[in-house]
């Protein structure tokens, strides 16, 4: 009896030994990203990649979005061996490259078609060496609530409005009695004054901020007229832009393209229930209509990853046509530009069906929100500090802009 038992146990052990490698055959690629469970395109990308590559599994490491840069840097600093890190802002990659955390992709990209990135990929190159592949390129558009415009009997915004026409329209749409705001500005610098870089000449690192003045004055005029919520209230209440627009009492809102997929989701699940559309952001006289600014999202391979080839397989897929179709299927805008991708974006269920919204998918020009430049993180701090003072009306726009000019100049003395 005892003998039987021991033979049986030995047999079980043998079988389990054989079974372990069979189970471990799946290769697992760890990808560090933010909001992995709530971001539709991340879910779609994972499903599509795993379906196209049986035997490879994607495992997301989820990091809170507002702490992303700090936490991921700490992870890399501590020798984390996750294979792929997604890049939220371009200067994250520039820092990581300088610290030696990003694996150079020179050998990989030599045979890789990057034409679809229409030049945006250079933002991820340092000294001519590519360190990451973009997979999303968001630019800013103007969202508007069609139902509010219909109720007020006003014509919808168009793709070729100037900022003055937009301000006029915002005031017209404001109805204090009904609690309707003509427009909504989120508290960020990018929502209020970043428009100055749309001309493709100005950048936020060019040490001269006089061109922001026009936009601060435009904003303050709108705030004085009650055409938008006040900055002080937004700051104290922490009202998120997604809720502000979804509440249905805001006629227009300039915001990044990423908000399209949020709105589609909201309409599907019933968080909000109104018709909306997008048009190109307004432009200044003398700047081409449809000019906007934006940001890139990409992925890099960790220099400490032990499966770099596999990681390349994933990020090259992510940036290319197939990955882009998965991204576009959720309403997000891929970095890869092709007819197939554009068709996929406008055919997403819930995307507005009017021609203006479709036309807004093809901006005339997209400048970078923040350029890659020397001391850009210091400049960011300074400009944002003065921005918050101007917005809270602690100082006049003129004083704020002068402070920006002086403090940034001091950085380079």
């Amino acid at each position: 009896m005892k003998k039987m038992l021991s033979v049986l146990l030995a047999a079980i052990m043998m079988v389990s030994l054989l079974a372990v490698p069979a189970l471990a055959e799946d290769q697992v690629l760890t990808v560090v990203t933010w909001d992995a469970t709530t971001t539709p395109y991340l879910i779609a990308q994972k499903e599509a990649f795993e379906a196209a590559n049986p035997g490879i599994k994607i495992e997301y490491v989820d990091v809170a979005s507002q702490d992303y840069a700090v936490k991921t840097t700490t992870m890399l600093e501590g020798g984390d061996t996750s294979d792929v890190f997604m890049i939220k802002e371009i200067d994250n990659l520039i820092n990581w490259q300088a610290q030696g955390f990003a694996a150079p992709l020179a050998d990989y990209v030599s045979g890789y078609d990057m034409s679809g990135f229409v030049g945006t990929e250079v933002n991820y190159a340092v000294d001519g060496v590519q360190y990451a592949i973009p997979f999303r390129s968001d630019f800013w558009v103007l969202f508007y609530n069609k139902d509010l415009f219909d109720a007020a009997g006003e014509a919808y915004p168009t793709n070729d409005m100037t900022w003055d026409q937009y301000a006029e329209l915002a005031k017209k749409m404001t109805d204090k009695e009904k609690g309707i705001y003509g427009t909504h500005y989120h508290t960020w610098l990018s929502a209020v004054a970043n428009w100055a870089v749309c001309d493709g000449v100005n950048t936020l690192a060019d040490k001269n901020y006089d061109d922001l003045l026009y936009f601060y004055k435009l904003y303050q005029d709108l705030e004085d007229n009650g055409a938008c919520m006040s900055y002080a209230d937004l700051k104290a209440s922490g009202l998120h832009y997604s809720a502000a627009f979804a509440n249905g009492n805001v006629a227009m809102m300039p915001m990044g393209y990423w908000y399209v997929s949020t709105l589609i989701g909201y309409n599907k699940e019933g968080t909000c229930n109104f018709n909306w559309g997008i048009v190109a952001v307004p432009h200044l006289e003398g700047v081409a209509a449809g000019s906007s600014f934006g940001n890139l999202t990409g992925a890099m391979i960790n220099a400490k990853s032990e499966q770099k080839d596999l990681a390349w397989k994933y990020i090259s897929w992510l940036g290319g046509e197939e990955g882009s179709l998965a991204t576009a299927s959720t309403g997000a805008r891929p970095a890869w530009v092709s007819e197939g991708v554009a068709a996929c974006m406008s055919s997403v269920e819930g995307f507005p069906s009017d021609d203006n919204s479709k036309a807004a998918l093809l901006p005339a020009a997209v400048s970078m929100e923040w350029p890659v430049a020397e001391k850009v993180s210091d400049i960011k701090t300074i400009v944002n500090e003065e921005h918050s003072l101007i917005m809270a009306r602690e100082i006049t726009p003129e004083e704020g802009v002068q402070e920006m000019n002086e403090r940034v100049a001091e950085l380079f003395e």
Partner: protein
Amino acid sequence: MSQAGVKKVRYRMGKLERKNTLVAYSFLAPNFIGFAVFTLVPVICAIALSLFEWNGGDISKMKFVGLDNYATIFATKKVAEKGLGYFFTRADLGIALKNTVYYTVITVPMTIVCALALALLLNKIKGAVFFRTVFFFPYVSSMVAICVCWSFMLMKDGPINQLIMALGIDFNKGWTADSTMAIWSIILVSVWRNMGYYMVLYLAALQGIPRELMEAATVDGANKWQQFLHVTLPQLKPTTFFVSVMMVISCFKIYDVVAIMTDGGPGRATKMLVTYIYDEAFVKVRYGQASAISMVLLVIVLLVTIIQFSSEKKFSSD
């Protein structure tokens, strides 16, 4: 006496004594090892790091720069050119220093007064245990929850402003979005949160005042106020000393309330030393410079503590 004679009388530990000493050291060891690994070594590393330029990652990229990091944070070039006023109005370190000192100078006495007043009130009233728990509660609550709640209460048209306006004062500003009020919102939250803890310390001290002293004072015809001034207060000196040392140190290290409520803003109105260190180290990834700022903080806290301890004798002798 000859040399040999001296050697003979040299003290030698007995076996039992040696054993006892070893036991004592073994009890001390865990704490000391913890202190060495998690405090002493990092402090020494930070001192060294403050002399280097390093953006993290590859250690071979560390560059020795001497006192350059200190020159940068003290803006020595500009200060030499434009005077000390420049340091306190424009340099990040000067502004952070000014804000931190301002916050400390107001918060410490305010907390002590509130804590002592609460302790005196709750010393002998009915239901004291209940109220003690109530006032101690903020101290054990989550900091994030406290700050978020206060942010709402301090909003424009919020309950605090409504209260102020009900008193007939025309004041309706979002506290955290206003550069003069922002630091006061931080002071308010800090005092409110910490007074319960220090109240408990004062309560314990009050219980320790000998009843005979009070009785003697009563016999001598002292009224309540005189009793408080000449008996209670002097008896509480050691506690006040301890509380003030602890508070000054913790005030210089203020970070959490600022990070949650104002994030150093608006502008640089609530930029503190520790938020400045955090920004330099983890946002701008300049570990050398961040270490230099933390050395400044270390020196300040050390100086304050030395001054306080050297005046301790004065505090407790009379």
